[in-house]
């Protein structure tokens, strides 16, 4: 009986070991992808900061500044851009952002607004395919390869709809990588452009060509593209960080399991040796 028990334990150890190899490999792949993604995310920051600063300055300095992009319209749908990963096995990474988006959809619908969705990442398109909301576009597998042109095409699609009066509100749901150990699902209002300071008393000395409004409105697609690009890259980096952590835990668990099983295996081995010895000794005793 002991021998068959030993065999079974050995087999389990083998299977856990091969699982551990996979999780270990996935952990390493994610760490290297994370490093690249983080670099890209960091490089996008100066551009975006300066763009946003310029827009704030226009809105605050120009006398009688007025733009359709800064005021909330009464009618029109709300567009939620939800970004998640292309694969699972990343802990609560996908679920967290969906939970936020689902809650927001309910809230907006309770206010009587139609909700349209745009999804980034295969997991997001799968999740929202069932929701019954209109899907404006799905962008799968772009996290690793996204360029500013992809983001700009998305942005122009959105501003096109906005200019035709179909949209009132654009919000982005993404995951922010606070550190390689913590990722946070966030929501961000993009249109109407939030938090622009207004101090109408200050006369600007800046010369805007052709006009403050025209410059501001022409920057909107860039701004939107910038937001989309940054959040896509950030979400992708978060996905890798979350997967790295999940895989690290899985590897640790596998190691623990192997240790546990090895102990059991050794016990079974010793038990069988002891039993054999007892049998030999008692056999020898019987002969005397």
């Amino acid at each position, binding site marked *: 009986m002991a021998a068959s028990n030993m065999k079974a334990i050995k087999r389990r150890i083998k299977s856990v070991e091969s699982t551990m190899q996979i999780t270990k490999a996935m952990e390493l792949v994610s760490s290297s992808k994370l490093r690249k993604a983080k670099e*890209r995310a960091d*490089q*996008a920051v*100066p*551009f*975006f900061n*300066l*763009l946003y600063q*310029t827009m704030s*300055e*226009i809105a605050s300095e120009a006398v009688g500044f007025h733009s359709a992009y800064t005021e909330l319209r009464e009618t029109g749908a709300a567009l939620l851009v939800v970004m998640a990963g292309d694969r699972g096995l990343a802990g609560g990474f996908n679920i967290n952002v969906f939970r936020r988006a689902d809650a927001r959809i309910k809230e907006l619908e309770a206010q009587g607004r139609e909700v349209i969705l745009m999804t980034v990442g295969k997991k997001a398109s799968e999740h929202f395919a069932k929701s019954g909301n209109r899907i404006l576009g799905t962008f799968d597998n772009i996290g690793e390869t996204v*360029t*500013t*042109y992809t*983001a*700009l*095409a998305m942005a*122009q*699609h959105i501003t*096109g709809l906005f200019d035709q009066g179909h949209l009132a509100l654009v919000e982005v749901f993404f995951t922010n990588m606070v550190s390689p150990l913590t990722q946070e699902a966030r929501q961000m209002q993009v249109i109407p452009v939030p938090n622009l300071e207004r101090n109408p008393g200050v006369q*600007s*000395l*800046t*010369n*805007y*060509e*052709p006009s403050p409004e*025209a*410059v501001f409105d*022409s*920057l909107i697609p*860039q701004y939107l*593209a*910038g937001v989309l*690009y*940054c959040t896509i890259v950030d979400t992708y980096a978060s996905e890798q960080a979350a997967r790295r952590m999940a895989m690290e835990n899985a590897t640790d668990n596998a190691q623990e399991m192997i240790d546990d099983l090895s102990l059991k295996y050794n016990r079974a081995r010793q038990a069988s040796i002891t039993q054999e010895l007892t049998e030999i000794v008692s056999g020898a005793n019987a002969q005397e």
Partner: protein
Amino acid sequence: MSTFPLQIITPEKVFFEGNVQRVIIRTTEGDVGILAKHEKYVAAVPAGPLRITLEDGSERIAAVSGGAVKVSPEQTAVLANAAEWAEDIDVDWAKRSEADALRRKENSKTEQELERAEAKLRRAVNRLRVSSMNK
């Protein structure tokens, strides 16, 4: 000639950072030359060429694709979706992209598709033009 610090920033990277004597950039209102101590100025920039004169007087040309230029006493910055030095432009690729844009323009069904194809075409043509300016 006095120089001033210039930054050309794209979402992918800080494309150029350094002191220059002069910048000539195409805005929606026409070509604008910027020298040191220029007044505060902001303008929208379509796809077009950008020439800078470096400290040593040598000139470099780049293709930028859409954005804005911002001049303030502290800094002069060009915000662009993409920027490429003329000598780095892949002419074959730009030609292919031009052909692709033309085909898309032909086949476009919605106004939006047409607009996007035209934007792509403008970028491709701009690249080719800037690349030939370098010779």
